[in-house]
């Protein structure tokens, strides 16, 4: 029982002090799980992040489920997940409770405009950095452009962009395998 609370509070702390998305949480999760609590080894946490990144869903949540399950089974994974999502949940509910009253305040509206512009910029930088890492060949470029066009110009569901990417990756692999014989 003590371990369950420990998982909950550790992830509550991680969820409370990271802003602007899950990637910022990874170093904190690693530090807590490996160095401070000794729940996992370096190798295990690397596996955990690799799996968390390849599966759909929120990386921080995937990692919480993995670490919780490894440490204390299903209950552990539920405790860790609750911990990591609670701050995000509570803060939005609290803000919405008050926002109704100050929504039309000029300062609040101005702050929103400023943050929106900054968010667009921060997301651009994120796309650029991610692109630089991932876009290594013609196939990758082709997939990015098609995925972008599907959403912006064709207004088709973003799900199809994901499905397209997966199929393109698979066909390229099967084609290479067929061409290169057995490998």
């Amino acid at each position: 029982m003590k371990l369950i609370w420990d998982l909950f509070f550790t992830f509550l702390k991680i969820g409370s002090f990271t802003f602007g998305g899950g990637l910022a949480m990874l170093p904190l999760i690693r530090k807590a799980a490996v160095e401070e609590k000794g729940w996992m080894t370096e190798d295990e946490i690397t596996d955990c992040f690799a799996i968390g990144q390849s599966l759909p869903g929120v990386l921080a949540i995937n990692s919480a489920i993995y670490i919780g399950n490894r440490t204390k089974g299903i209950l552990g994974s539920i405790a860790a997940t609750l911990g990591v999502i609670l701050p995000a949940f509570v803060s939005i509910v609290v803000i919405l409770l008050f926002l109704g009253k100050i929504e039309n305040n000029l300062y609040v509206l101005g702050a929103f405009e400023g943050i929106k512009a900054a968010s667009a910029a921060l997301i651009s930088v994120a796309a650029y950095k991610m692109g630089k890492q991932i876009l290594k060949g013609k196939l990758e470029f082709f997939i990015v452009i098609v995925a972008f066009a599907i959403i912006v110009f064709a207004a088709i569901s973003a799900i199809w962009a994901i499905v397209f990417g997966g199929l393109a990756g698979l066909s390229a692999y099967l084609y290479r395998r067929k061409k290169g014989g057995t490998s």
Partner: protein
Amino acid sequence: MMPIFNLFIMFFRIGLFSFGGGYAMLPLIFQSVQEFGIMTAVEFSRLVALSQVTPGPIAVNAATYVGYQYAGVGGAAVSTIGVTLPSFILVLTVMHFMKKFEESKSLHAVLGGIRPATVGLIASAVIFLAENSIFNGPVFSVGFIENAKEYINLLPCIIFIGTILLAGKFNVGPIKLTILAGIIGALVIR
């Protein structure tokens, strides 16, 4: 009014098809809320702004926001559970079949194709946000090309360029930049 069950299904679907982190989820979340007619584009861009200044994963912020607007705290809880549940099922399953997962080359090929697609998704989220902040209207339109001046919001544009420079070139942290932009916005744009 849409039953709360649909809210659950909607976010379950979002959780199931979101690869590549919070930013890559934005297009799918926006398309879904559009489809159900829950939220306007302006309100959605506000949601993105809010999730930058609140702790935790953007997907949870978004699920809470949409669910709350639609059906109060209960709705917020249902959406959040919906967006989290696919992770539970998938992570626990994969942990069970770890070896097979690691060895499957076809699976890695599929994931290798999905990764660049998420970059496209994130780029499309930029266009959406830009159209609702630094521009006012669709970027890829005849009107925009003819009347570019009227489409550009000057101050947000300056904040946009400044943020790109500070984040991209000088590695200033996103939290500092977001707070700074909020203060500038409150004092100048209003």
